[in-house]
């Protein structure tokens, strides 16, 4: 059984992770002058395969209605954040390298762009398939 949701979930997972990564990169740029701040990032490939692995039975996150409920594992916000290895050390202990961050951010935005286009194309294809031929 081929469902539309399954078709789009790969792309939407990837888009979610890209958005998540943009947030991390934005935090790095924002804290470029904060003493003792360590630049962070996550491995997109690892995060993606992790998200895909958790897609099977526990794909949907559990609904939590009270504060005591436990969050389900997996999902886009469960990325393993790591610290970026520094190239040039700063006196204030900050490890943000603006060139690296800007480059990563441009790459991330471009990948996001690609994903939205792929999704658009997929939806266009599905639309075309749905149109009845008279």
């Amino acid at each position, binding site marked *: 059984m081929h469902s539309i949701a399954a078709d789009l979930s790969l792309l939407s997972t990837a*888009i*979610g992770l890209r*958005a*998540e990564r*943009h*947030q*991390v*990169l*934005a*935090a790095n*740029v*924002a*804290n*470029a*002058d*904060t*003493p003792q*701040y360590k630049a*962070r*990032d*996550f491995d997109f490939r690892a995060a993606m395969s992790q998200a895909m692995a958790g897609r099977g039975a526990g794909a949907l996150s559990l609904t939590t209605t009270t504060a005591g409920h436990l969050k389900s594992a997996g999902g*886009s*916000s469960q*990325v393993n*954040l790591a610290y970026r290895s520094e190239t040039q050390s700063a006196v204030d202990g900050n490890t943000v390298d*603006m060139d690296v961050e*800007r480059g990563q*951010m*441009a790459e991330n*935005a471009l990948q*996001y*762009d690609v994903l*939205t286009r792929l*999704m*658009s194309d997929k*939806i*266009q294809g599905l*639309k075309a398939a749905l149109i009845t031929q008279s």
Partner: protein
Amino acid sequence: MSLFNVFHISSSAMTAQSMRLNAVASNLANADSIVSSDGKPYRAKQVVFEAIPVAGGNEGARGVRVRQVVEDAAPPRLVYDPKNPAADEKGYVAFPNVNVVEEMTNMISASRSYQSNVEVMNTAKSMMMRTLQIGQ
């Protein structure tokens, strides 16, 4: 939507950088103020940044805030000028400990950082616009 958090992060950084710029403006304006409100020479003020978590963001999403404004501990600049009414018994006038060169580089750094954050915000905005165009 995690992209909205980018706006919170970048705007907090822009606020912090503008506060830094404010401190620079104050320091440069008072570079020669030998008497401040407490009767002593003006002391250079420096802002201290601190990373703070943003609401609803993940672990890596950290905004910025100014934790405190500290006064520069450097000693005042002593200038020999016995004619000056503010001179001490040896004829020295205590000038503010503002380092003008340092403040100028501080100003450039703050303005560059501000610029970078604006760019991050613009990128996030264009990403969101792309998202809205899905399926069209």
